[in-house]
């Protein structure tokens, strides 16, 4: 049986009249990289703040490494590395001094890894914090989250502000942590940030989880755009009825006296039937492109809030 490292049951959090979390159910397993995705204001940071005991649940329950965050207290937080979504740092002290301070708060843990991690991200430890660019501040955040080699990493939009090269370095750092046995819970707006490394993702919208899936299933659902050119005419009927094939369009053309056709369609899963059907004709060009998961994702995002409200009203009226 897999051990659950983060669990929330019907978690509700209100800020005054604003309901930020409306019954959130989540289970993150030990050793996985879990993507927590949703649009602005969906409740990602709120969830994370409950896990770190900055906020107390209005209703429902949260459990981290087997205990409620409030009961776990300081001992629980010693086992967590946290990267805030909006890292606020000011003052004259240098990033090195700040990181040394964080190590002292951890009873000295991680102090010896500061230099290595800073070197890896090209962070100058002698520069004062208040002059640092957004990306450099984010590096400080990354170093303090990873330096004590925690068994659970909670990262709120971790790669914001990092350039592509450092994003790659960051993803490497995350996979290394996972390979050492750590569990990683990371939030993001966009799937592309996490799809490479996450095993599962949850999609949150308006304070509720609308989908949890492993990335392979999601990708499968997103499908591939297949395009083919034939050196002869084809009929779209030949393709529309095929299994795993959708949205077939066929365009016929004539060029230098030859007749041909272009076909494009959306393929989910196994391409066997499509390939066999195409083999009946002379194929001169072929391309298959993974559809951006982002497209699928936008389908979730786009459901207008008004529709949700009417759904709830309808439910309540029953």
């Amino acid at each position: 049986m897999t051990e659950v490292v983060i669990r929330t049951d019907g978690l509700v959090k209100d800020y005054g009249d604003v309901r930020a979390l409306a019954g959130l159910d989540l289970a993150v397993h030990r050793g996985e990289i879990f993507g927590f995705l949703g649009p602005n204001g969906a409740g990602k940071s709120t969830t994370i703040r409950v896990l770190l005991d900055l906020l107390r649940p209005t209703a429902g329950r949260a459990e981290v490494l087997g205990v409620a965050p409030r009961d776990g207290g300081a001992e629980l937080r010693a086992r967590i590395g946290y990267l805030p979504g909006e890292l606020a740092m000011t003052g004259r002290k240098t990033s090195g001094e700040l990181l040394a301070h964080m190590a002292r708060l951890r009873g000295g843990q991680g102090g010896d890894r500061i230099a290595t991690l800073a070197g890896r991200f090209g962070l100058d430890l002698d520069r004062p914090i208040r002059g640092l660019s957004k990306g450099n501040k984010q590096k400080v955040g990354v170093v303090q989250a990873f330096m004590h080699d925690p068994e659970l990493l909670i990262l709120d939009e971790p790669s914001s502000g990092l350039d592509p090269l450092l994003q790659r370095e960051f993803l490497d750092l995350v996979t290394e942590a996972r390979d050492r046995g750590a569990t990683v819970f990371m939030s993001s707006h966009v799937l592309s940030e996490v799809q490479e490394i996450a095993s599962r993702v949850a999609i949150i919208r308006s304070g509720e989880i609308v989908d949890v899936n492993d990335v392979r299933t999601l990708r499968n659902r997103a499908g591939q755009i297949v395009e083919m050119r034939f050196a002869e005419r084809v009929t779209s009927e030949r393709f529309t009825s095929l299994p795993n094939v959708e949205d077939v369009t066929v365009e016929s053309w004539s060029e230098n006296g030859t007749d041909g056709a272009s076909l494009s369609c959306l393929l989910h899963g196994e391409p066997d039937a499509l390939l066999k059907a195409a083999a009946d004709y002379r194929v001169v060009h072929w391309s298959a492109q993974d559809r951006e998961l982002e497209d699928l994702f936008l389908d979730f995002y786009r459901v207008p809030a008004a529709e949700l409200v009417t759904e709830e009203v309808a439910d309540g009226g029953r």
Partner: protein
Amino acid sequence: MAADTLPVLSGVLRDQRRSLAMWGLALAAVSAMYIGFYPAMGETSDIDAFVRNMPEGLVEAMGYDEMATPAGYLRSTVYGLLAPALLLVFAIGAGARLIAGQEEDGTLELELTSPVARTRLVFGRILALWVDVVILVAVVALATLALVTALDMELGADKILAAATGLLLLVLGFGTIALAVGAATGRRAYGLAVAAGLAVVAFMFDAIGPAIGVDWMTTVSPFSWYIEPNPLAEGVDPGGFALLAAVPVVAAVLGLLTFDRRDLMV
């Protein structure tokens, strides 16, 4: 003190060292300047003329009737006015900033999510504030002692120590109130407003009460607990000082308890 309070305390002190040094210099300069002015007082009758033209009640309230003695002079300048005013500005500002200010600007987030209990974070900050105030009051007391000795003024070191102790307790009280209100509400402005408001009321009650003959005003005013009777002349007033000492302790406990219970909006 638990081991994890120490890094919190030292972290805050390290952040503050520059501003603390500036405040120390300013307080030393202001104290020395005013005390150094004392010998000139005896030589000119300007002050006498100035005092004679003021309403009697006000003269007494400000202690100007005793201006001719070192104890009276120091009370009406440095110990009754300038040092408390400057120290309260420092302590209330620092107190409100240390929890609520840092919560509002988000800089508290990393410490809050580190393996240090919330109560330890607050306790470390209270201690840091107290250390600051002890240092600054010591600066004032040492400047006083140095000038009093140099100018050969008739004022015992024990009396200076008594006044400095009262000043310390007074400032600790309002500074800790600012910190505690900030810790309870998460709003720096509330900490500033409550502590500064109370300090002003305390000062006004001490000044107005005797002038209009209303006893309860001095009974409830921490400023009166500190300065009535004048510790520079009479030494420690145990009753008043005990009341003064209770304020920071009670405020600290309330701050610790409330901070542990609420949502933190870093």
